[in-house]
């Protein structure tokens, strides 16, 4: 690619009008353009259809979560994490819970781990489904989107069954879950596991080996493995470039070491590879969910951390200790150990990290979210320079940049 570019026109350079022949137009892609699927502004310099340079503006939905987190007790921070990558909020929720559990050194029952794995993998499927079906939409293939969105709806119904919420789930608590999976959940999950592969294969047939789709996406917005690492890419975007870094395998959390799954990698790091990596990850997630269901251990669905885990309501009304703990948790009066901890999970888009400093106060002294979108979106100008405008749109959707995570 980029053969048509002169030597002095390299990706990432801002070109003046004098540098090349012909008219250069300035085009505002965004902030509110339907093709950007979120609020991102890109000021493009274009020569006809070709992009010569791009300048990004981010921060349109910055909500100062890191500042707010310094003023909230630990259990009130979970709803903030919902609103980072809102396509897979359960992963963020549980990443946060596990960070606090690491700090308080709670011992988590195996059953909680397995339940979390099921919810997190469902969230990953939902996240990847949105991303991949939207890649289809941006290439002009709307049909696949409508197929899989019904299935995404089913996943949201499953979340609803577990925690009552759908998008910003706030699922689980520090220490585990508020209740065990209900029989209805098990039935719905069984139905989903039976029905989903059929629909998913149909979706896969529509796009994966579709000549038009392949021509459209191969070589659109590529990045090499070296550059991706330099830019601290993670998740499917890094794997599409050919680096097999997956937090679930490198630093297993929540008993991921118990499950057998493969980490798909691409070679070119282009839109097609990103699409294929996500497709394969959906299949692997399904397999992980089945393994977790089959091997679901007996035991309690919460850890023995009464200072953080809200007691059942009937105990609050009838037992003194439960009432005290309830009061302390709700009022944010729980003593928290002093410490400094970094914990990361494999989110829908990559390594979602939580860097937490506790000074023993009711709220974190400092909480920083490692947001994969924020980190890899800075490579976008480099990836689209020399590409056409329609490829830039495809690149954006295939990178799965989520505004909430980008701007925190």
């Amino acid at each position: 690619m980029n053969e048509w570019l002169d030597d002095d026109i390299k990706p990432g350079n801002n070109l003046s009008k004098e540098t090349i022949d012909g008219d250069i137009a300035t085009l505002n892609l965004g902030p509110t353009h339907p093709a950007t699927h979120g609020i991102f502004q890109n000021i493009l310099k274009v020569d006809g259809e070709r992009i010569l340079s791009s300048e990004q503006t981010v921060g349109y939905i910055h909500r100062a979560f890191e500042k707010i987190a310094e003023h909230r007790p630990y259990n009130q921070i979970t709803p903030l994490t919902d609103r980072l990558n809102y396509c897979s909020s359960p992963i963020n929720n549980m990443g946060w819970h596990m960070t606090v559990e690491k700090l308080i050194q709670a011992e988590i029952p195996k059953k909680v781990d397995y339940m979390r794995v099921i919810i997190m993998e469902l969230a990953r499927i939902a996240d990847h489904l949105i991303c991949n079906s939207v890649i289809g939409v941006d290439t002009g293939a709307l049909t696949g989107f409508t197929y899989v969105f019904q299935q995404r709806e089913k996943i949201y119904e499953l979340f609803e069954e577990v925690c009552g919420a759908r998008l910003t789930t706030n699922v689980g608590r520090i220490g585990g879950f508020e209740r065990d999976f209900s029989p209805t959940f098990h039935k719905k999950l069984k139905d989903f596991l039976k029905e989903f592969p059929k629909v998913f294969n149909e979706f896969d047939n529509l796009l994966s080996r579709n000549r038009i789709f392949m021509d459209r996406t191969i070589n659109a917005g590529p990045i090499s493995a070296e550059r991706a690492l330099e830019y601290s890419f993670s998740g499917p975007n890094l794997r599409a470039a050919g680096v097999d870094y997956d937090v679930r395998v490198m630093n297993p959390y929540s008993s991921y070491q118990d499950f057998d799954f493969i980490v798909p990698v691409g070679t070119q790091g282009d839109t097609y590879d990103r699409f294929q990596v996500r497709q394969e990850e959906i299949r692997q997630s399904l397999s992980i969910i089945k393994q977790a269901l089959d091997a679901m251990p007996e035991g309690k669905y919460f850890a023995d951390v009464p200072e953080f885990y809200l007691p059942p309501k009937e105990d609050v009304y009838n037992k003194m200790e439960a009432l005290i703990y309830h009061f302390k948790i709700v009022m944010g009066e729980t003593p928290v150990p002093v410490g400094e901890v970094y914990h990361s999970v494999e989110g829908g888009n990559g390594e979602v990290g939580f860097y937490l400093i506790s000074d023993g106060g009711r709220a974190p002294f400092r909480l920083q979210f490692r947001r994969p979108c924020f980190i890899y979106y800075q490579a976008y100008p480099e990836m689209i320079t020399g590409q056409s405008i329609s490829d830039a749109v495809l690149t954006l959707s295939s990178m799965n940049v989520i505004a909430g995570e980008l701007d925190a």
Partner: protein
Amino acid sequence: MSNSTITNEFALARLSAKFGDKIISSETPFDLLTIEVPSADAHEIIQWLKEDEVLKVSYLTNLGGVHYPTDKDREFAVVYHIHSLVNNFRIRVKAFIPLGNPAIATITDIFVGANWMERETFDFYGIIFTGHPNLKRILNEEDMDYHPMRKEYQLEDDTRQDKDNRFFGR
């Protein structure tokens, strides 16, 4: 974090052999090697960590600031989390800088991806990364005249009377 192929002790010994007393202190909270280095040497040490043949700590996971308002001349910390994907080994590097001169060398020449992370840290804390190619605000408005993550700025307006923060866990 236990499946790393090199141990914290080995990495620390290797660092100490190379940099001696430039490693001001070290600890391993939750099994993550944390070293404190002088702000003037942070760049050199991070570059060495990346280029070292054995450690190969070449993936910048995270970069951020912390404000400790009560620590005289150590008000700001810049914290780097760096990861060796080859050895699956993580290290946290901290450099403290004073409020009077909150400046530290940029590492964008070592990791391209540090660009926005440093801009964000500048935006939040006002830490100047000298040599940064484009050090301006990223998430907040450009004409904002303060750095909001500093501890002196309250989350809500101090003058607010209708709500007693003690009762809201704040």
